[in-house]
């Protein structure tokens, strides 16, 4: 955000802010990218169990650089560790956990989110794009609460929070809460609702960078550190 030096949250701070809203004891699936950083910001006194869809409950931190093993990896195919009490399982069981509503929460990245909670995060639909969906559609179809972490706009300033997604949907109406570099925003039956502003951000700034109506906080007091 070159136009607003010093304004807003960094990638790490966005992840830290999202982690504050995950309840103790939750079974959580973290998407690839900024969502992966959530695991490094577990609030004091809470324990989350991380699920990775390629067959591990109880995913631990990355091994030391150069360490780990090639057959213990996460959904992004990076080497990880397993915590004491972890369990391995096959893919159909893994997605039974996801689709069957057994996971409490997932944190995903986004290309676009609409004010109806539609999520687009798997394809730009471009003629030269290689479509790749992975487990995103299964996650949003089955996991109880869906968090999105994303920059508020693209690098060229185009809003990612919109009235209607122009990219192919991952699913309609699934996103519960959005953590951007500028704000925490809920998706409600009446559309976007500002929950919290990042340091230095204003309602007017957030509204001007959002391509859909957004209700200011005065209509719904901030609920920092709570879950929707």
């Amino acid at each position, binding site marked *: 955000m070159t136009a607003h030096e010093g304004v807003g949250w960094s990638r790490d701070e966005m992840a830290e802010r999202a982690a504050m809203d995950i309840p103790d004891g939750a079974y959580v699936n973290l998407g690839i990218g900024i969502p992966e950083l959530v695991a490094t910001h577990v609030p004091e006194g809470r324990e989350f169990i991380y699920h990775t869809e390629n067959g591990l409950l109880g995913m631990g931190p990355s091994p030391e650089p150069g360490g780990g093993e*090639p057959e213990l990896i996460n959904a992004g195919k990076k080497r990880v560790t397993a915590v004491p009490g972890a369990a391995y399982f096959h893919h159909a069981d893994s997605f039974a956990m996801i689709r069957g509503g057994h996971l409490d929460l997932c944190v995903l990245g986004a290309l676009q989110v609409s004010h109806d909670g539609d999520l687009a995060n798997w394809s730009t639909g471009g003629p030269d794009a290689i479509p790749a969906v992975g487990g995103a559609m299964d996650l949003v179809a089955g996991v109880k609460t869906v968090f999105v972490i994303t920059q508020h706009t693209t690098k060229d300033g185009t809003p990612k929070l919109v009235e209607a997604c122009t990219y192919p949907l991952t699913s309609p109406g699934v996103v519960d809460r959005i953590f951007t570099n500028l704000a925490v925003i809920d998706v409600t039956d009446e559309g976007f609702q500002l929950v919290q502003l990042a340091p230095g951000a204003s309602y007017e700034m957030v509204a001007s960078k959002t391509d859909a109506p957004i209700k200011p906080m005065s209509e719904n007091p901030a609920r920092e550190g709570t879950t929707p």
Partner: protein
Amino acid sequence: MIDKRIGTPAEAVADIPDGATVMIGGFGEAGSPIELIHALIDRGARDLTVVNNNTGSGEVGLAALIKERRVARMICSYPRTANSTVFPELYRNDEIELELVPQGTLAERIRAGGAGIPAFYTPTSVGTPLSEGKEHRRFDGREYVLEHGLTADFSLIKAKVSDRHGNLIFNKTARNFAPVMAMAGRTTVVQADAVVDAGDLDPECIVTPGIFVQRVVEVTEPLQESELVAQGVSYP
């Protein structure tokens, strides 16, 4: 006496014909039966339909099979991975067909195929381009899409240990699709790091029962895809 052991990867895949549907285990390199894939390349079968979560990386294993133009059609969830260049190039040139399937739907289609279930309804992909043209139905007020079970002529998978009956245990996240692909393959071929006698595995700990396995070949020190890619190896 039941003995599913076969001497070499080449013998284990010697009857895979042109036009076969082949499921190949693995999620990225974890669980990829690389020696069996290389034997399939040597075997020369063409016009294959391959089911795998990805499309391989570098120019070894599955990527090499694709590079050698043996694969007419890929069924997968994520054909875009680091070091995956072979598939994207063929796909952009319309030289390979892609059926893109959400990962959980792919796993369940394979499980269903292996379990004798011809089709099932799932909420995954409803309201997206991937459910277009498919039968939809409402249950308890929610919309679902009909997906068909998948079976294969051959499944090629990797296990940590097999006994001579084909009872299998796996290594960590290398398990991934292998157990369901073993169920869905009419002929399931396993490469195992170790093959032991019947009774050497604890029956309580067996992940895939041997009834789902037809052939077992021991590969004691399997190649690792990421190492080969790092060394710039190209197969054959």
